[in-house]
């Protein structure tokens, strides 16, 4: 049976106080501002996951008779130059933005943490070579690398995700390496190695769980950046290609009609701003939560 049963008779209050502590933690995380932000993020993730349920029209449904209509009751946010419903396209576009951002952060975390942990754990030549590479990548604006990679791969969703995964992995690598270096010398790691636990197991079961906190916070700070970069690149025609509804691409398409149909540029941009702001607020809250000694950054 679990350890908990063994202690139950001796310290009956232990679990209760732990729950209380946990509740206090949760309450500390959810101040009014982060609650609103969390609610918005949940709503957008729901919209992104089940767009068909919320969106009144499909994202490719055209009605040439209803071209460039201003917001009205049948088209809440108006229609575009093909008579497509802007609100529905925004809902479908949420999925594109959110999931491209998430997958990019996931790739960046996996690649970066692997590099960082291996580098920190083994040291020596591996460490030297990998960290020089990371240094060079960190010493230049990442958008430059993104543009080089996209030139190489051609514009598409796949190359966008790969590109962002690569350009943001150095930050994760740095952090993971620092964590590994300090965890490596802890007594529990030394004793694990002393009783002959294989290296891979030491890395995965002993070191990784102990350095995961800051990594999660860093990843949550990367997400809004990834969403913004996706929007920027799609806006420049270098990311998601039409007719897939990406917020950045919608903005770019709406530019030509700005004078007669400003809603085509106002709403997609506002959508990007709202999601990025909410995720930023949550990231800040996560950072405070993980490290209460840091002053609130907002």
């Amino acid at each position, binding site marked *: 049976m679990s350890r908990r049963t063994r202690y139950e008779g001796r310290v009956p209050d232990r679990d209760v106080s732990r729950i209380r502590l946990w509740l206090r933690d949760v309450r500390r995380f959810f101040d009014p501002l982060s609650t609103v932000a969390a609610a918005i993020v949940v709503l957008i993730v729901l919209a992104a996951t089940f767009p068909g349920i919320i969106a009144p029209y499909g994202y490719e449904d055209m009605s040439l008779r209803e071209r460039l209509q201003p917001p009205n009751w049948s088209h809440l946010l108006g229609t575009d130059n093909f008579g497509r419903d802007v609100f529905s396209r925004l809902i479908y576009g949420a999925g594109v933005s959110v999931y491209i951002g998430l997958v990019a952060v996931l790739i960046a975390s996996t690649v970066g943490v692997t590099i960082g942990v291996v580098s920190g754990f083994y040291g020596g030549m591996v460490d030297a070579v990998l960290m020089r590479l990371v240094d060079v990548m960190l010493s230049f604006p990442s958008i430059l690398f993104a*543009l080089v990679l996209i030139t190489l791969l051609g514009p598409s969703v796949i190359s966008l995700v790969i590109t962002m995964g690569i350009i943001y992995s150095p930050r994760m690598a740095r952090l993971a390496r620092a964590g590994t270096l300090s965890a490596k010398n802890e007594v529990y790691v030394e004793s694990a190695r002393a009783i002959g636990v294989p290296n891979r197991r030491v890395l995965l079961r002993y070191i990784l769980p102990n350095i995961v906190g800051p990594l999660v916070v860093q990843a949550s700070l990367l997400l809004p950046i990834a969403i913004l970069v996706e929007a920027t690149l799609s806006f420049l025609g270098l990311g998601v290609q039409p007719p897939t509804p990406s917020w950045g691409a919608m903005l770019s398409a709406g530019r030509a009609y700005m004078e007669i149909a400003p809603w085509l540029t106002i709403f997609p941009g506002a959508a990007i*701003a709202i999601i990025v702001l909410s995720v930023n607020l949550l990231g800040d809250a996560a950072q405070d939560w993980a490290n209460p000694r840091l002053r609130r950054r907002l």
Partner: protein
Amino acid sequence: MTFSYLVRRILQTGITLFLMSLIVFGALRAIPGDAAVILLGEYYGFEEVTVLRERMGLNDPVYVQYFRWIGSALRGDLGVSWRSNESITYELARRLPVTFQLALLAFFTSILIALPAGLVSAAKRNTWFDRGARVIALIGISLPNFWVGLMLILAFALSLRWIPSGGFVSISEGLGPYLRALAAPAITLGTAMAASTMRITRASTLEALSQDYIRTARSKGLREFTVLTAHAFKNAMIPILTVIGVQFGLMLAGSVAVETVFSIPGVSRFLIDGVNNRDYPVVMATVLVISLGYMIANLMVDLSYAIIDPRIRYE
């Protein structure tokens, strides 16, 4: 600041740039397919490809190609565009001043907003002003700058008709038209930068305000304004300067979307066109030049530490 430090720092910059050029060159040479074939498009004969390959030097080993490229780049010849067949050096020489002027104006805009806002925010910590300024800064970080640009065009160019909706006007045509053309792009770029600068100004001034010398300054009866500007702010400058330096460099790259929105013929626009046309020589050259600008900005920040804070001495 010792001379040897300066030399070492410049050498470091050179090595980083060299590694960067290796990465960029290597990445773009790893393209699937043949550069000559891409250049010729759909219709070409075997002979044409052979001739072009020979002329472009694609038959040489890769390292020979790299050294030829970097060698001419160092002599100021960045090659020709595959698309227009024009000299890239000439094109960049025309576009660099445009981007630089935009960056400089944006820089001043952001400093004018960020430093006072950050200082007042720190001085009036946890008041309504402070909270408001912090929320605005967070919004500033979250807004996509190309959208801010489009909204400025919508409001001030299309509705109010105060400014042109895009394009660049040289200062030789008068200060009025010049500022009207560059105001909106500079504000777009500057406000994005102001947000981060304001946050660091506030944090670092708060840090300085909690020091002992501030208590001393206050207790000897100095005005709060003097305490804030001459004592706290001066000591808070180092982190602020670091962020400003990084931001200035980032702005050179961050102007990609802004130059597109406002149809400004700058370096970033050139780079985006190069990426769109898969014009490899253009991409390589612009990335290298922007990187150089970024490294120089960082170098200057490093060196200015010693001037601002005499306690810092480089060995």
